[in-house]
């Protein structure tokens, strides 16, 4: 199928982009998620505002113990090491398993997060890393914790006239332990359950269970999970409603494997 007709806008300034979006335009980044929806006419925006030419849209800046990753940074760039340090290693490994390389070459971290497909990788991983979303609206920048950014299927904490400008993630010590496990029936397929565990010395371990058709489930203190993964995984998954027995089992498995990975 071909998309329904739409207009194309290429804002050069963030303020211009925000105006377009506020007026109902759909923001477009790499369009690797939006493209299929357009082609199936499941999404029929009047205008697409192409964010790819905005200043500082892509790229990574290190400042004061924090890494600021431009929303337009592609998965491929992250896979290839655009993010430095221990967190870069973690993110590169995640990026490598997003869809396929040609998709990663155009798809962006911000686009994926703002699209808010519950099965998407950054939707699961970024809350575990404990970062901050940098939104930009008519009144300038606003900071939102990534743990509460995705609210539901295709639903985020962004206001209708806001755009995701960047994500900030902490610089992690080399000793930070990370476990990540997702279940896909095929390489590149959307996950049926994703779990992540981050354990930084001196801080409470954090875990996320995601890709269960709703917003990611953030466990701010995952100490109990690390202590008794079998029992705790079962308890946590039992709190998620509407899962088939198979998805429950896969979700529990995901949590257990993520804990093993972070050991």
């Amino acid at each position, binding site marked *: 199928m*071909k998309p329904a*007709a739409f207009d194309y806008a290429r804002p050069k300034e963030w303020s211009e982009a925000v105006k377009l979006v506020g007026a109902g335009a759909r923001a477009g980044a790499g369009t690797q998620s939006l493209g299929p929806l357009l082609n199936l006419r499941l999404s029929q925006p009047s205008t697409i505002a192409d964010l790819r030419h905005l200043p500082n849209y892509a790229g990574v800046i290190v400042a004061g113990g924090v890494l600021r990753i431009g929303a337009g940074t592609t998965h491929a760039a992250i896979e290839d090491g655009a993010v430095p340090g221990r967190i870069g290693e973690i993110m590169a490994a995640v990026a490598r398993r997003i869809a396929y390389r040609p998709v990663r070459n155009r798809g962006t971290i911000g686009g994926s997060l703002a699209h808010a497909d519950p099965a998407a990788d950054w939707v699961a991983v970024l809350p575990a890393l404990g970062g901050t979303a940098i939104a930009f609206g008519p009144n300038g920048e606003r900071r939102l914790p990534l743990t509460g950014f995705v609210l539901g299927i295709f639903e985020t904490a962004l206001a209708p006239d806001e755009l995701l400008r960047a994500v900030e993630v902490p610089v992690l010590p080399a000793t930070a332990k990370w476990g990540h496990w997702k279940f896909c029936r*095929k390489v590149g397929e959307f996950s049926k359950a994703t779990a992540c565990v981050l354990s930084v010395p001196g801080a409470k371990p954090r875990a996320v269970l995601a890709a269960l058709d709703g917003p990611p489930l953030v466990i701010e203190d995952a100490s109990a999970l690390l202590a008794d993964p079998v029992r705790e995984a079962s308890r946590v998954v039992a709190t998620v409603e509407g899962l088939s027995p*198979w998805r429950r089992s*896969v979700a529990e498995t995901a949590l257990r494997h993520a804990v093993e990975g972070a050991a």
Partner: protein
Amino acid sequence: MTASSDGLGVGASLRRKEDARFLHGQGRFVGDITRPGMLEVAFLRSPVAHARLRGVTKPAGAEKRVFTLDDLPGMGTIRANSALPGFRVSEQPALAKDKLRHVGELIAACVAESRAAAEDLAAGCELDYETLPAISDMRTATAPGAALLHEHWSMNAFLETRRDDDVSGLDAIAAAKVTRTLKTSRQSMAPLEGRGVLAEWDPRLEQMIVTTSTQMPHVTKSGLADCLGLDEGQVRIVSPDVGGGFGYKGILLPEEIVCATLARKLGRPVRWLEDRFEQLSASANCREHHYVLTAWAAKDGKLLGVECEAIVDAGAYSSYPFGACLEAAQVGSILPGPYVLPLLRCHTVSACTNKPPILPYRGVARTGVCYAMETTLDALARKLKITPQAIRFANLVPPEAMPYRNLVGKVFDSGDYPESLRRAEKAIDIASVRKRQAAGETVGVGFATFCEQGAHGTSVYHAWGIPFVPGYEQSSVRLTPDGVLEVRVGVHNHGQGMETTLSQVAHEVLGIHPDRVRVVHGDTALTPYSTGTWGSRAGVMAGGAVAEACRQLSVRVAAIGAALLQVAKDDVVVEDGKVRRKDGDSSVSIADVARTWYRAPQNLPPDVDKGGLEITAGYRPDPDTGTHSYAAHAVVARVDTDTGEVVLEDYVIVEDGGKLLNPMIVDGQVLGGLAQGIGTALYEEMPYDADGQPLAATLADYLLPGSTDVPDVRLEHMETLSPWTTFGQKGIGESGAIGPPGAIVNAINDALARIGAEVMDLPATPERVLAAIHACRK
């Protein structure tokens, strides 16, 4: 029959002649072809599975660009009747008349300068319909009180068949009896290229030229001429490069009828290209079988009898030419497989449901039947506490019985069936699997053995009652003045490598270098009539026809060559592209012979055959009951008991396709079939909800096996010649797709045996595998 001494003929793994154009992006598929003034078509399709259609409101201002059945009078109805007694006839209008019988059925054609604009028109139409209860489950289709799809029928079934051997005494004498209820899922054949049609009317020739992605251009021509009310000579079908067929493109399409009608009405070329959404949502059309199978065996595993109740979901209409009951009606005859079976009782139903009409997918009914039989055999073996190999050895037709006529009258031509299993058994590491099982690993080994009837002809299909019975396959060969050989065939090459293998056949007979052989196919104006490429028939039938035509041409070439050499006809041979004196080295090339016929006829002998250097010859094996290739598949599978995921660790195929015309290409056919069989076994499923809505409309939902999902299979060949074919070759194109579901699920069930779990339904998705495990733990 060899005139080739350079190893490029039959049996050589010659590189494919067709590769160069594809590797450079120079293939020509329907979607690559445009015409000046061409219009694009998008179809308004049924959004519901079952409804009474009251009317269509066209978008305001676009009334003349949207065409319903009423706007296109004179289009014939598609009817594919079977001669089998009791067959119920369906009438499929090219555009819906008053009833909608499956999601995706064509309602109106929308015409515009671009596909996108045509889709805008379709989106702007309003439908008025009254929803009727949908029949989405074949098991309830024939239940009392079910809504009737075709209201003049007495029940939702195209056909029932019965074979009634008396199995009532088997309970008393059998050492073991098992009954299994098994199901395979509806699939989409999903060739990478969808269907596509470009229709144009040539006023000079008064001819409808339809460029269409089809496996059987001549059958399409006949069917289309009939539906358009034209002479067959007024329809020309061109089938250019075709991006995969697998059975999906062996059909007369309603879209072809509509596009042709529109092209004539509008006086402009009209094109429709199927997209993936259409393909998945409107045309998932194969493989959905349901079995209740009971088998009895003696202590040593010898089968005493089988009883089978089979339903095949045939969808809403009977497609042309193969019809709605090709699969179900064959179940009984395929069930004995490669085994000696004394008794068979079998009842089949071709159920009519609110789903797309069934088409035969690579392997046709065999994939489902092999799955049912092979998993049931393993269940018997477990019950008898013998190995899966042992139960097969106890029943496989032995080589000394060949040719063997089984209880349903199939005649196996040649082969050593047990040897294929012995080799597979040797190649797969059973000991290591048993050791790992003992250590508690959920890993298993599975086998499937089967045979594939291919290239069967008139006698078989006449008995099956299909509207198109294949007869003698023909080829036209002619030498051009420069000595190039043109080989014209009515079969179609869409991946099978026939541009290469048929060149090899011609080379084998005439010795002309394969590069100097030009295989012409895919155009009804240029090729002899043929039922086309299906049923694993082209290598045997077209191969035989080309060989025969070349053999006859060789006689004429020899006569002219002998005259040029000034010796008697009997004193020359044709070999290596030359006519050579038997007693010496002097020779003339076939090019010299061709030049003489066309350009220097003064040098021809006075008794020259005035037919010249062009011959059409026909071929049919005798007997024409078909070749039987066969194979043993062996697989090691590991099951994750937490997620239900199945990983194929090792895969072995031992295959006997008789003489391999081109071993490299045969390998490719088997490997490609295997990938599709793995799809059937583990991934592919088009679920429908209770309202008959398809639930997998993209390739993100309908999972096709990818590069990580197909193991690096080990493939061994046996080459037992068929006594009935030109070179001893056997049909083998579908074979790879037949064995995997049975072998893989047997491996899974072997792995799960310690838990007591068994998988019954395909595909064996993680969810189904885990459900089987959980059912045992409760």
